[in-house]
């Protein structure tokens, strides 16, 4: 029963999306109110079909209806209810269905928000979104069929991959990732519409920027959650390994970050329109490339939980989207003529450009390292991978340069700066930079890149904070207001600006934390017998023995280790090996003792009653990566909310060029 219902809904989604795409494009070419009404109805119908299909699947998962192919594949009666719910995105077919659901929600939201605005653009935009929707419906109808009928339903299923059951982060990471990835479809459609119409005005950049920023926030959180999951579950002690699947999420993030910044120049000065459109198109293409890389099994990766035959189909879609984008750009990009002029001298404008170029270089570097092995294997048949040192070597200088640019840009005024302005704006931040550098040297930092990151981090943090509180100080002086009143007023008037600096502050923190944690850690492999201890830095680990914990769906064999730091007891840690029901191999679960300065990280390699083989690490500053991400997300939200309300005050906040100098003085 359920398989037929599900398949019907998927076919309806395919039908409405294809029809909506055609009607949308036709209405774009020859505008008519009824055409636009039908485009919207079909868009909502597509969203409804995807929602109902996903609900049908959830119902099947919760009721353990093994006649549904996907449930027979990932469901199990022995798993807790929450695992059954999140099984929707634990394997290939379900995750494509989830993709369709998120896409449907985005399309419905973006259509209803702009139903009465931008009449020239919107039919094209909805047409492009629904064309993308039609492709994913097609995947669900054919190559990645979740609602296949199982003729002889089994009594029980295997349950999802043990690694996915092993940690709660796997519940929240995929929804964020999909919200970020799929959300990029909306700016893509809007950018295509701008090209098709042949104009990108000051008004139309706003919905584009809003949806770009929203997806960017989700993607930022998702990438870090992925790293956090790897850290808490995989047990090798780190959070980022330049794995192809990690790179797949990082690549569109880089271009999206560049686009969020260049969109500001489009809005403010009417320049870089074509460039921004290119970045937005590239972002979407990179999300599809990422989907291909993660879903086709062309890479050896810890994260590729689902491999199947949909690779070629996605590749065809990628090629079609690439061709469509290139043709559109070739035909129309010259129509997006600038309305203003970019300053060429030392100015904030220039550093926006440099920042954009750095991010694009970064994208190329990561793309090259990720795709290179595929190309070599295709051409020469030699199997290889690009080692992590390549990525580290390339990304560290770019990251430090970005940190530098993030500080120097905002320290400069819009337009041309005089030499005197420059000197004054740089003097105090350089002081803070020197202080942080000295602090690093005293604490024993010797790696030159880490020292450089601390130096620029200090400079940029000073500039960012003084810019953040600049309007507050101006108000306090001009209106004789107290700090909190001035902050409230300044915040409500310039929330986008505040949000940008909050996000920058988070970015400084995260780059510094990554620099410190990746160069200042210690690690050791030890093998202990019961009663023996090992020392690691200031820590002493004593192996008290092995314990077994039996839960309904798994059996944990855990090592009991008593921990002291500088002689003071920190309690016990229990890194474990978990054996799941229906799974042959055990899965390790590391144990982490977190503090604001450093983490003690213990991971079991092998364990029996006589000995415990352990990997032990001290990772400094790691928890600041998670805190910084929350700050970045908060900054993004602060910058997003006023524009969602339709307020435009933020973009018109008076130029702060002279005020910077005052600020530096005061």
């Amino acid at each position, binding site marked *: 029963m359920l398989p037929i219902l599900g398949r019907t809904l998927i076919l309806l989604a395919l039908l409405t999306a294809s029809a909506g795409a055609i009607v949308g494009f036709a209405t774009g070419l020859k505008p008519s109110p009824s055409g636009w009404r039908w485009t919207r109805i079909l868009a909502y119908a597509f969203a409804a079909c995807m929602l109902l299909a996903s609900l049908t699947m959830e119902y099947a998962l919760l009721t353990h209806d093994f006649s549904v192919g996907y449930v027979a594949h990932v469901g199990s009666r022995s798993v807790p209810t929450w695992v059954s719910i999140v099984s929707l995105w634990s394997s290939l077919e379900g995750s494509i269905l989830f993709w369709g659901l998120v896409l449907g929600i985005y399309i419905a939201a973006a259509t209803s928000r702009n139903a009465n605005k931008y009449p020239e653009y919107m039919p094209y935009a909805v047409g492009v979104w629904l064309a993308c929707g039609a492709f994913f419906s097609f995947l669900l109808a054919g190559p990645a069929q979740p609602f296949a009928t199982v003729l002889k339903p089994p009594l029980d299923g295997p349950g999802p991959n043990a690694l996915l059951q092993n940690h709660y982060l796997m519940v929240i990471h995929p929804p964020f990732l999909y919200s970020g990835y799929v959300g990029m479809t909306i700016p893509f459609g809007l950018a295509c519409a701008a090209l098709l119409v042949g104009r990108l005005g000051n008004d139309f950049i706003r919905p584009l920027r809003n949806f770009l920023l929203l997806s960017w926030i989700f993607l930022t959180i998702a990438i870090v959650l992925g790293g956090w999951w790897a850290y808490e579950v995989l047990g090798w002690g780190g959070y980022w390994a330049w794995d192809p699947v990690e790179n797949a999420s990082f690549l569109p993030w880089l271009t999206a970050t560049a686009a969020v910044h260049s969109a500001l120049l489009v809005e403010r000065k009417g320049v870089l329109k074509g460039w921004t459109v290119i970045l937005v198109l590239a972002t979407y293409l990179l999300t599809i490339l990422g989907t291909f890389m993660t879903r086709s099994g062309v890479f*050896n990766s810890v994260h590729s939980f689902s491999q199947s035959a949909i690779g070629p189909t996605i590749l065809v879609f990628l090629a079609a989207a690439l061709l469509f984008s290139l043709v559109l750009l070739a035909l129309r990009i010259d129509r997006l003529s600038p309305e203003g002029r970019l300053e*060429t001298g030392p100015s904030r404008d220039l550093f926006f450009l440099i920042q954009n170029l750095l991010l694009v*270089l970064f994208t190329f570097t990561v793309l090259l390292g990720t795709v290179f092995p595929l190309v070599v294997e295709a051409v020469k048949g030699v199997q*290889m991978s690009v080692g992590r*040192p390549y990525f580290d070597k*390339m990304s560290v200088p770019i990251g430090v340069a970005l940190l530098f640019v993030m500080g120097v840009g905002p320290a400069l005024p819009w337009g041309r700066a005089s030499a005197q302005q420059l000197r004054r704006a740089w003097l105090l931040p350089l002081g803070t930079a020197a202080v942080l550098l000295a602090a690093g040297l005293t604490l024993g930092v010797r790696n030159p890149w880490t020292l450089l990151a601390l130096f620029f981090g200090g400079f940029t943090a000073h500039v960012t904070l003084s810019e953040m509180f600049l309007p507050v100080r101006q108000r306090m002086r001009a209106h004789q207001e107290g700090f909190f009143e001035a902050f409230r007023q300044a915040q409500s008037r310039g929330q986008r600006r505040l949000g940008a600096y909050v996000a920058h502050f988070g970015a400084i923190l995260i780059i510094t934390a990554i620099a410190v944690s990746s160069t200042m850690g210690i690690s050791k492999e030890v093998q202990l017998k019961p009663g023996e201890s090992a020392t690691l830095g200031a820590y002493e680990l004593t192996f008290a023995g092995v314990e077994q914990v039996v839960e309904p769906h798994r059996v944990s064999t855990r090592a009991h280790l008593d921990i002291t730091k500088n002689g003071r007891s920190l309690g016990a840690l229990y890194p474990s090996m978990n054996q799941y029901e229906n799974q042959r191999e055990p899965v*390790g679960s590391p144990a982490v003792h977190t503090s604001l300065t450093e983490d003690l990280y213990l991971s079991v390699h*092998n364990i029996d009653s006589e000995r415990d*083989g352990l990997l032990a690490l001290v990772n400094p500053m790691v928890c600041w990566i998670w805190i910084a991400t929350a700050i970045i997300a908060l900054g993004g939200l602060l910058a997003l909310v006023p524009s969602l309300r339709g307020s435009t005050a933020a973009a018109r906040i008076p130029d702060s060029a002279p005020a910077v100098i005052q600020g530096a003085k005061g």
Partner: protein
Amino acid sequence: MSATATADLRRTRWFAVCAIAVAVAAFVVIAASGIGENLVYYWGPKELRAAGNKATGATIRLGGQVAVGSVKRGDGVSNLEFDVTDGTATVHVISRGVPPQLFRDRVGVVVEGTMAKDGNFESHRLMVSHDNKYRAPGDKNVDIKELMRSTEGLEEAPAAVAKVVP
């Protein structure tokens, strides 16, 4: 705009274009050399033996099966020795570090490291295949690609990898 200002602007543009061209060229050279120095090759015992001296020094991932009865465990965390075989050729591996839980005879393994001059493979990472479907090879060749793919932890690089100088 006066003629001199226009000429100025033109000259600035030329400088900008040249500077960007030089920067991009430098970047491409650095990236290309960076990739060249950091390639990791995937080989089986037969290919490794066939390559002879050419294999010495490069970073290699060697995939195969742990030969029956070849495992020698030393004391503590170091000095693990075993043979990796694909049914036709065998390579002696000297490994540092704690072996994973599933390490035993006949299991599919991937070791990362370098070929030493004495013909032993010195490994700094030992990973065990996690694939339920993986079958220990008889006299057939190991399907290296399948083995690499099914070996959990391949792409995660612990600190040890950073220390390898090819």
